[in-house]
């Protein structure tokens, strides 16, 4: 018997005439890394957008941690429940230092969605500063604590965003193509990182085009094509599934 962290039930979403998601049902189990793969425009990001409160679906529910329906909740409420997301295009605070970038999510986690204390001194926040430094060290960027985040390379921005999510220790972490648009050596660095954080027991949904990454980190894989889930299973099952090979992988050898 396993716990379900996120239960997506009968979710539909259309943009004009385009059915981006049709009747999606998905259970994400605690402690697992669940990969969602599928061709461009399949609806993968749209599905995550529904989960974090960026989009409201036309119908369906998304329940988190066995209880609350997150549909209709605002993004900060969903995050406060313990759901963090790395976006497909990096969303960081470009004008702030790396340390600040990571400290802010930590404050939100500790202080809640709004915290009216004007005169706390930043220099007294040794615990969170320490924590932020450690997280940045774990993604290999502790040599850049005071660098302004906007000046980072694309790969580093993604790793920074990952650190911003990790410091919150979310119940569920959503990763939207963490290696997209990266140079080869950057990708390898990120894969190493993903493997490392696989060990921490945090539940994750990862969207990824790089099959090498998917098969090395995922416990479960779901395949999305034209807004519908056409297969779900362990990496081995997906590898051997003829429908998947046909629809998505174009018969290529896995």
């Amino acid at each position: 018997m396993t716990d379900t962290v996120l239960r997506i039930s009968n979710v539909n979403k259309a943009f004009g005439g385009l059915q981006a998601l049709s009747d999606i049902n998905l259970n994400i189990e605690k402690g697992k890394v669940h990969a969602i793969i599928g061709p461009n425009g399949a609806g993968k990001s749209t599905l995550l957008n529904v989960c974090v409160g960026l989009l409201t679906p036309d119908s369906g529910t998304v329940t988190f941690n066995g209880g609350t329906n997150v549909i209709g909740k605002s993004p900060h409420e969903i995050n406060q429940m313990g759901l963090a997301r790395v976006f497909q295009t990096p969303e960081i605070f470009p004008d702030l230092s790396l340390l600040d970038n990571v400290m802010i999510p930590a404050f939100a986690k500790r202080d809640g969605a709004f915290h009216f204390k004007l005169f706390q001194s930043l220099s007294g926040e040794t615990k969170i500063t320490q924590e932020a430094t450690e997280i940045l060290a774990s993604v290999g960027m502790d040599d850049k604590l005071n660098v302004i985040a906007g000046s980072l390379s694309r790969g580093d921005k993604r790793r920074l965003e990952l650190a911003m999510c990790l410091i919150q220790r979310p119940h569920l972490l959503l990763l939207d193509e963490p290696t997209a648009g990266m140079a080869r050596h950057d990708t390898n660095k990120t894969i190493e990182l993903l493997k490392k954080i696989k060990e921490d027991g945090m539940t994750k949904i990862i969207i990824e085009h790089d099959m090498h990454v998917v098969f090395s980190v995922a416990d479960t894989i779901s395949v999305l094509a034209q807004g519908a889930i056409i297969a779900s299973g362990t990496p081995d099952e997906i590898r051997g599934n003829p429908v998947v090979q046909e629809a998505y992988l174009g018969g290529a050898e896995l």
Partner: protein
Amino acid sequence: MMKQLMNLLKKQSDLTTILMFAAGVLTMPIWLDPIGANYPDLLQKFVIFGIFAVGYNILFGLTGYLSFGHAVFLGVGSYAAVWSFKLLTMNVLPAILFATLISGLIAAAIGFVSMRRSGIYFSILTLAFAQMFYNLAYSVLIPITNGETGLQLRMHDPRIIDNYFSDPLPGLPSTDFFGMSMNGYSGFYFCAVVLILAFYIAMKIFRSPFGMKLKAIKSNQHRMRYTGSDTRPYLITAFIISGMFAGLAGALLAVTDPLAGAERMQWTASGEVILMTILGGVGTLYGPLLGVGIIKYLENIFSTINESVLQQFFSFLPQWGENIMVSVVSPFVGEGWHLTLGVLFMIIIIFLPGGLMEGFSRIQKRYRKAKIKDNQSDSTKE
């Protein structure tokens, strides 16, 4: 050694910062003397508008939300203070507290509505509110504002508290702080102390997690929401604080000259504080004060320079040279000080979008680089 000193200056503790700041403000009559700016009226303006700009910077500098209507709070603060003088007492303390409170309440209402939008729509909403208040002051609100004449002290004002303790003296009373007159230099020193307090509050906000969150909202509000912060209450709080600072400044204008008029709320006054902030450096601790200094100096000193002063200044030149110089320079001084301000502003926006503070930090960086080079060449010699 040099580096340590630099680091020390960079990471000034709260105490050293505020002590240095207080020393700088309180000695203004001394160091402003050589440039002819040492007279109480102007000194008072420097510090009062300093409070206005420091508060405005908490909103615009930290969150990036550009309000076009902050002069409303300046006006509200003045009216509230004068009413406190009329109804209660000539002591400035209740007036200041009352004005700050009232402007905070009005800022809460305006902020609550305006913060529903961001960017240009936010700016337009604040401008609309400001114009509304400005026009109401001449119509519906005349019982409160006394319309075109402006709100003034009168002989037969109730002044409940004052009249309870002593019989009214003949003539119009004047404002005081427990016996300390608010005219001339003592008025300046009183306002200066208020500025120091206001600056201290702003500095604490700048150096708190709260201030850091405001900067994060400016940098990427989207990210802020998806990492669990409800940005709206943060923004409204910043709006209210800056409104209260403006109300405080408005009250001090009435403290030093107990009279309030609606022209204080005109959109040009809102524009002025934006100019001051940008000129000095948006989002920096000292920049807005620098902007206030420059604009108020131009407005009050530069505007008094006339042709005869210029002729004297250029009298070392031969007659034809003097004539040329006077005719070239005269459009920029006296009535033409706006031209100087405009040109200065354009130069800043184009070359130093971070304001004069950016210029200073560039110079400092260059100096530091030169220093490092010096040290290196020194050590290779050894």
